[in-house]
């Protein structure tokens, strides 16, 4: 393997790690750690494995069929089902984008002390500017690499000296202590939803087309999906461990974007705080761009418009207008003063409801020889794909009742 290829793989993995955590992971992992300690580590493992399974399928479909997932969703499932999938995914994308934009403004406020609404506008202008001027690869890299500042939480998790035996015990699903069973189940659903958000697979799949992947890139797809997401999952573990060590014993229930940063500050002082805030800012900012693009990709692919970041905006005007409008609508939502953390909780839970509509077409297309030729799912991919689809159905049905019964995890 050439040095250039190794470098490409390493860069892809680094940006996937830095880009893994979004505001949903930040909120749910910290709250889960503060409420149940290490007991929900297993849910993160299941969620990360799920996103690996389906992202690998999406990347493979894009590399072989040279078409992104949503393009095939309409063709494979028909107009009606495709439209339902489109509407559900656009609502979830918009809610998630609004939550991420709110997260960006809060981080900027914690760093600058300027008024929140002014920072909302500045933040959105900055995100639009970055999306407009940076090539696709550089958007991933800039936000992914600066998101790696979140590794401060991994170092903090080690420095807080948890009892590793107890941490390991959390990887085994079982009975829980502290909090009610319904709250425990609510967090299971939330953690799975945060790890398997639909926009991630739409963005990953369209990104593969933007990067002009072909059958020769199937190895790169596998390595990026497996190693990138798995290592990104370690950041989720780190957030949970840190919350379990610092917040659980003190009875702190994290309700603010600034609360995880407090853990880094308490462990490493000013440098830790700055790294945490910069990491959150870029991880959440990157996710805001991904959600707006995912929404525009879906619309363009469904209606057959010309699309892609590689196109000049004038050559793909409806695609460009779509992501601009998504940013504008997200700004309007958070300008109303709605709490981004609450919005995050709702967006994750509603994304869980939309998961089957996202993942079923992927599973169908990845098994269709018309599109995939010899690169259809193997036995292992199908076993995992089907098991995960059943799991997705179960959590999709239970998500909203659990949210209502537990008052959003409050008990």
């Amino acid at each position: 393997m050439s040095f250039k290829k190794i470098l490409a793989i390493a860069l892809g993995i680094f940006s996937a790690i830095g880009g893994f955590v979004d505001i949903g992971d930040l909120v749910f992992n910290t709250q889960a750690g503060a409420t149940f300690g290490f007991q929900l580590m297993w849910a993160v493992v299941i969620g990360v494995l799920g996103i690996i399974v389906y992202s690998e399928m999406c990347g493979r479909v894009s590399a072989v069929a040279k078409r992104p997932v949503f393009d095939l969703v309409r063709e494979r499932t028909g107009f009606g089902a495709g439209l339902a999938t489109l509407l559900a995914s656009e609502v979830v994308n918009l809610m998630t984008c609004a939550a991420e934009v709110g997260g960006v403004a809060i981080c900027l406020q914690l760093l600058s002390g300027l008024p929140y609404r002014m920072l909302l506008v500045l933040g959105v202008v900055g995100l639009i500017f970055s999306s407009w001027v940076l090539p696709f690869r550089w958007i991933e890299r800039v936000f992914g690499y600066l998101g790696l500042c979140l590794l401060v939480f991994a170092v903090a998790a080690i420095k807080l000296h948890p009892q590793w035996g107890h941490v390991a015990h959390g990887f085994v699903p079982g009975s829980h202590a502290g909090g009610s069973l319904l709250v425990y189940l609510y967090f299971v659903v939330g953690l799975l939803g945060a790890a398997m958000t639909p926009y991630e697979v739409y963005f990953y799949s369209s990104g593969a087309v933007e990067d002009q992947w072909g059958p020769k890139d199937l190895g790169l797809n596998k390595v990026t999906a497996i190693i990138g997401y798995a290592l990104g999952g370690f950041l989720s573990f780190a957030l949970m461990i840190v919350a379990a060590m610092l917040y659980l014993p003190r009875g702190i229930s994290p309700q603010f974007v600034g609360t995880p940063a407090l853990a880094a500050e308490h462990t490493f002082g000013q440098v830790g705080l700055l790294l945490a805030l910069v990491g959150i800012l870029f991880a959440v900012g990157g996710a805001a761009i991904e959600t707006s693009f995912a929404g525009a990709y879906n619309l363009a692919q469904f209606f057959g418009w010309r699309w892609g970041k590689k196109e000049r905006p004038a050559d793909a005007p409806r695609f460009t207008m779509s992501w601009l409008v998504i940013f504008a609508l997200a700004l309007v939502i958070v300008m109303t003063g709605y709490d981004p953390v609450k919005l995050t909780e709702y967006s994750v839970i509603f994304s869980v409801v939309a998961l089957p509509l996202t993942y079923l077409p992927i599973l169908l297309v990845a098994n269709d020889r018309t599109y995939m030729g010899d690169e259809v799912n193997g036995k292992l991919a199908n076993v995992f794909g089907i098991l995960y689809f059943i799991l997705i159905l179960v959590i999709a049905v239970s998500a909203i009742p659990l949210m209502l019964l537990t008052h959003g995890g409050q008990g």
Partner: protein
Amino acid sequence: MRRTSALAAILVILCAGCGAPSVLEGKGLSQEAGTLQSSAAEGALLAQDVASGRTIPVYVREHASDLATAVSQSLSTLEAVQTEPSLRSSLRRLTNLAGSIHRDLELLGTADREESAALVRRLEAEAQAGEQIAAGLS
């Protein structure tokens, strides 16, 4: 005619409900106590970092203000609600506690290291008081 009467009855009930203070029972009070305990404990952790010079003033000001706002919302709720006679003393204690946590979190936003050391002790005591009230309610 029957439909008009039903509509009028609903309007009367709604209008009566508008002016009446809402009632908070044991579970609701316990949740408010939990919020106060959590905010005070988080404030104490933040104050520890201020006291040891390990933080950045703008972060302290903004985060303490967020915590103070959450406590102020609890305070408004507690001041506006009524409860059953056996829980009235808990409601009174919680309202007083919310007031003092709110004051301390506002002070924390601009406190120097010495003042913060005192705030750590106060906020820790307030977190403990919140925990005790919550335990008494459950």
